[in-house]
């Protein structure tokens, strides 16, 4: 009982000193809970959305969801006559045909794309009663006749569209112009798509190119009939009418909703686990902060603890008192964190709203597991962090009560620590070295993981020992410039190496990851650029940033451009089934069909054979790993089942190298070979085009190409420089997202620096008072604290960046097997982070330095 009472009193007495520890717990827990609440809310929203937007029963072509469903630019369809068949089925109140496609682009009068930039689809379809259930016409009227189109209100708002404005739909069936006749608003959550409606005949004509076809049929059940009964009846009614190529897919509202939700949940899970990973990293960093807090509290209270022991407290009781204080901190911090997490989730929802996805706070979903996970995390983090300080507290002898408190003795970094840390670091370095020697990426990545973890732990253990050396070096380089104030700052940073080590280690973790990822990222760009320079022979690359396939009209436009010497078509054929000579089967393989000139556009090294031969009739190439796995050599004959087409026997004529970054794992064959087995109407559209300019006409051809594609704003023409830049931008964006998420860990680490300084200032009150009394000015005092902070931050940065660059280099060596052949250290980033750490150190010292400056000299001297 006394343990609890003492713990509560101890916590309350030191609540100011625990504030930053509490914030560290709060931040990590808030991020975890925020992520959970946000993803749960997204799931709820979309479950609801899919449930309300699904018809009682939906009939669609069986291959509607296949990978290649829209590769031809035309969606799979059902004959319109089925509607009548379905309506005759028992229990069907009504059936209505819908036709829609996402393989289209919509532009305004200025030929600017109206597609969402968030990656959400552009949907063009027919306006039906079924759509009217979830949308309300707010302006104008439903479209009638081929010249009218209706647009959703969010898209209209975003692009400033009004009734009467002209828009054009660009699809594989040509470009269709229409005038806006109406604007309709979603009555359910709009997931960010841009939606355009035509009347049924127009939609059929521009999307499919023939009338009397539908992409799906929405069935409404009669009153008193369950969806399941109706599904059964519809299935029976259609049994006799099954078309020659494939059957139907018949789903109840629940099944359709579940399927859509499952697809969506997969995407959401990736995001959820990534964010949770970063939150846990921040929690790990928080451990160091809390460890420092409790260490300092225990040191400061040595006399008090000694007294407790002298009057009869057992070691266990002392230990438990400290742990109980940590428990209170954990519970309070994480309780606040759960609340903050819900707030964070709401903020995220607002942010999604700004991106076009309107989420309602009515759907805010807080599962019971969320607060439990938050509190467990917070409590575990604080208890783990307080474990060692609590143990140290229990070792305080009763004699401590009698001793002159003086200053806490300099904590010397022990030899055991040095030995253990060195052994771990060396073991980790050996593992990293093994990584660079690995023959296969799989083995190597295990070594890499082991190496990263071991060196990290090694650095954390050896950190306090390193602190002495590194701080002295930094002192020589930086602090000596500041005279005696600098020297005192250096001594203060060295005073307790364990504290400096733990504070620096917290910063080290985040910055090590930043350094590692920046090294890998810039090596990727450098390697790809290098490869592009070596291998890419094409002058221009034409593709759609949003992944739209290239329509034949656009291909013709490219071919017709002035100054173009050759155009290479490049298609991806999904879902091929390859049967090896020994009978083994590789299913769901992607084939890369290209014109023979592709061998010039992209020069790929071969392990065997000549790649040009692979474009001969009935020939193909395979990549090295594929050949090894299936025992293929040049000359092997494989049977290929083409998607939506026939079966051919192809000869392997070349084996390509695996050390490539472009077209990794490609199986090449010529477009002509593919066309032999795939009927024209099933042939996927080109996913990219490559064009070569006539000699000396590069600039003119570039301009001509851009002009030729003016009517097709969904495509982008890139020359090699553009392409490299795009590659760099893409990598930069990815890294920025990761850096933004790592910022949380770095923020907690910076709080750790603030915490250490703030507690040090309290601990050194008398010393500060003394120095002020004998003439240290406020400015000098503040500078001293700032310099100490800068040194700690630079120490952490130095360790982190060094460690991270080591990891990055090892990772690059490993990935060299995968084509990441060039190691590039992004010095501007690394040096920027290092300089930034000094700034961060200055900022972290602001409050503690201000506080120290404000101390009353007499009061400080009199402090016990």
């Amino acid at each position, binding site marked *: 009982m006394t343990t609890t009472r003492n713990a509560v009193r101890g916590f309350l007495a030191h609540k100011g000193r625990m504030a930053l520890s509490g914030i560290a717990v709060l931040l990590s827990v808030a991020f975890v809970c925020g992520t959970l609440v946000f993803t749960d809310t997204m799931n709820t929203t979309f479950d609801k959305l899919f449930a309300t937007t699904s018809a009682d029963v939906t009939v669609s072509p069986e291959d509607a969801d296949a990978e290649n469903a829209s590769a031809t630019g035309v969606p799979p369809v059902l004959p319109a006559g089925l509607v009548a068949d379905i309506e005759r089925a028992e229990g069907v109140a009504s059936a209505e045909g819908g036709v829609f496609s996402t393989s289209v682009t919509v532009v305004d009068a200025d030929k600017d794309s109206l597609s969402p930039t968030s990656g959400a689809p552009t949907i063009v379809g027919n306006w039906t009663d079924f759509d009217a259930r979830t949308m309300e016409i707010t302006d104008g009227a439903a479209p009638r006749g081929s010249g009218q189109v209706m647009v959703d209100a969010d898209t209209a708002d975003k692009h400033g569209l009004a009734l009467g404005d002209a828009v054009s739909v660009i699809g594989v069936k040509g470009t269709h112009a229409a005038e806006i006749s109406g604007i309709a608003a979603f009555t359910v959550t709009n997931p960010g798509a841009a939606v355009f409606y035509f009347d049924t005949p127009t939609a059929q004509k521009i999307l499919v190119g023939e009338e009397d076809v539908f992409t799906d049929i929405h069935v409404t059940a009669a009153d008193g009939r369950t969806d399941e009964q109706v599904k059964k009846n519809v299935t029976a009614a259609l049994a006799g009418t099954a078309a020659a190529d494939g059957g139907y897919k018949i789903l109840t509202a629940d099944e359709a909703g579940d399927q859509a939700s499952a697809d969506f949940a997969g995407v959401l899970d990736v995001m959820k686990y990534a964010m949770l990973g970063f939150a846990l990293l921040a929690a790990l960093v928080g451990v160091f902060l809390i460890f420092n807090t409790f260490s300092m509290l225990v040191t400061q209270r040595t006399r008090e603890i000694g007294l407790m022991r002298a009057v009869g407290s057992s070691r266990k009781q002392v230990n438990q008192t400290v742990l109980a204080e940590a428990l209170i901190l954990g519970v309070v911090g994480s309780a606040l964190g759960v609340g903050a997490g819900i707030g964070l989730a709401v903020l995220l929802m607002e942010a999604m709203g700004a991106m076009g996805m309107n989420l309602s706070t009515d759907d805010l979903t807080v599962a019971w597991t969320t607060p439990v996970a938050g509190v467990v995390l917070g409590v575990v983090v604080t208890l783990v962090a307080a474990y060692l300080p609590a143990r140290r507290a229990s070792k305080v002898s009763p004699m401590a009560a009698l001793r002159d408190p*003086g*200053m806490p*003795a*300099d904590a010397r970094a022990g030899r055991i620590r040095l030995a253990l840390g060195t052994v771990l670091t060396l073991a980790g370095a050996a593992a990293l070295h093994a990584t660079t020697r690995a023959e296969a990426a799989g083995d190597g990545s295990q070594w890499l993981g082991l190496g990263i973890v071991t060196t990290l732990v090694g650095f954390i253990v050896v950190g306090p020992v390193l602190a002495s050396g590194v701080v002295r070096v930094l002192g020589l380089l930086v602090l000596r410039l500041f*005279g*005696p*104030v600098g*020297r*005192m700052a250096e*001594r*203060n940073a*060295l*005073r307790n190496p364990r504290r400096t080590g733990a504070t620096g280690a917290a910063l080290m973790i985040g910055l090590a990851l930043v350094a590692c990822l920046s090294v890998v990222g810039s090596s990727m760009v450098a390697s790809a650029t290098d490869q592009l320079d070596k291998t890419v022979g094409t002058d221009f690359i034409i593709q759609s940033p949003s992944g739209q396939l290239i329509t034949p009209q656009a291909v013709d436009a490219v071919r017709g451009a002035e100054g173009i010497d050759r155009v290479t078509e490049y298609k991806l054929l999904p879902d091929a089934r390859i049967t090896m000579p020994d009978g083994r089967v590789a299913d769901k393989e992607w084939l890369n069909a290209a014109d023979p000139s592709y061998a010039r556009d992209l020069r790929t090294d071969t392990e065997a054979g000549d790649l040009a031969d692979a474009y001969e009739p009935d020939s193909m190439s395979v990549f090295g790993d594929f050949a090894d796995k299936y025992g293929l050599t040049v000359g092997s004959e494989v049977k290929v089942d083409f998607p939506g087409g026939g079966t051919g026997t192809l000869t392997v004529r070349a084996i390509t190298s695996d050390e490539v970054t472009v077209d990794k794992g490609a199986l090449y064959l010529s477009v002509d070979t593919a066309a032999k087995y795939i009927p024209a109407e099933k042939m996927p559209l080109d996913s990219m085009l490559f064009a070569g300019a006539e000699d000396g006409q590069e600039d003119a051809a570039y301009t001509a190409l851009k002009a030729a594609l003016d009517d097709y704003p969904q495509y982008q023409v890139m020359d090699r420089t553009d392409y490299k830049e795009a590659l760099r931008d893409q990598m930069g964006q990815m890294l920025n997202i990761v850096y933004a998420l790592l910022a949380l860990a770095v923020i907690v680490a910076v709080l750790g620096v603030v915490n250490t300084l703030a507690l040090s200032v309290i601990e050194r009150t*008398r*010393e500060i008072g*003394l*120095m*002020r*009394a*004998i*003439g*240290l*000015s*406020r400015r*000098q005092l503040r500078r001293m604290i700032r310099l100490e902070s800068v040194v700690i931050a630079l120490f952490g940065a130095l360790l982190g960046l060094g460690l991270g660059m080591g990891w990055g280099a090892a990772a690059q060596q490993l990935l060299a097997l995968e084509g990441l052949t060039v190691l590039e250290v992004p010095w501007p980033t690394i040096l920027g982070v290092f300089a930034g750490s000094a700034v961060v150190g200055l900022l972290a010292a602001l409050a503690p330095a201000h506080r120290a400056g404000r101390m009353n*000299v*007499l009061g400080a*001297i009199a402090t016990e």
Partner: protein
Amino acid sequence: MTSAVTIPKSGGTGRTSAVAARARQVVKAYGTGETRVVALDTVDVDLMRGEFTAIMGPSGSGKSTLMHCLAGLDTVTSGQIFLDDTEITGLKDKKLTRLRRDQVGFVFQAFNLVPTLNALENITLPLDIAGRKPDQEWLERVVETVGLAGRLKHRPAQLSGGQQQRVAVARALASRPRIIFGDEPTGNLDSRAGAEVLGFLRRSVDEFGQTIVMVTHDPVAASYADRVVYLADGRIVDEMRSPTAEAVLDRMLRFSGGHPQTSATGTRERTA
């Protein structure tokens, strides 16, 4: 009439006055209204250059407050304080800090040294802070007098209490301040170590002409001074020249015994 005030006159150098520090009508009060406590009640005192003055008085008499105010560590409620001819009452923190750094030396009861600096670094700390080069000859002389020549590279934790206080005195002397204030400098020491420190203070007055003001409640410590000033209830009630430990003790006993009127030197009390 006020007690313990001598008429300012020129000292031997002719350039500076013979009075090192002066307090005029100094009042220091805490709180307001009902809870108002007067720590110093219109105190007038002159502290002479080249003299070793001890300020004595019972607990709560205001002796430490007086010293803190004289040294510019604490502010006064009203009245004036001069160090030499500079009025320090009303100075801003920046100037006060510089004044303390350049012209005042301190020796506190405990915790006089910065634990991260060694003995020599502690001694030169005020000079380092000021960015001044120590006068090597003077420094050597001070160090020699303190008797710490072999321990200059030691950290405070490696020194005994007496040694620590001697380092503190050496620090106070190193910058050749106009005046050194000691706040019970021997309060934490045993009598032998205390005697070492006091002897050293005495020698710095005799040999270097240093001005020292020391607050103490120990009659033995006070007997090292040239002059003892007695405080009670925030007022100066008496003073004694060339004190001996017995005389000081005797005087104090009479104060605490409640018979100050019998004071042999005819202290004027309840001064206006």
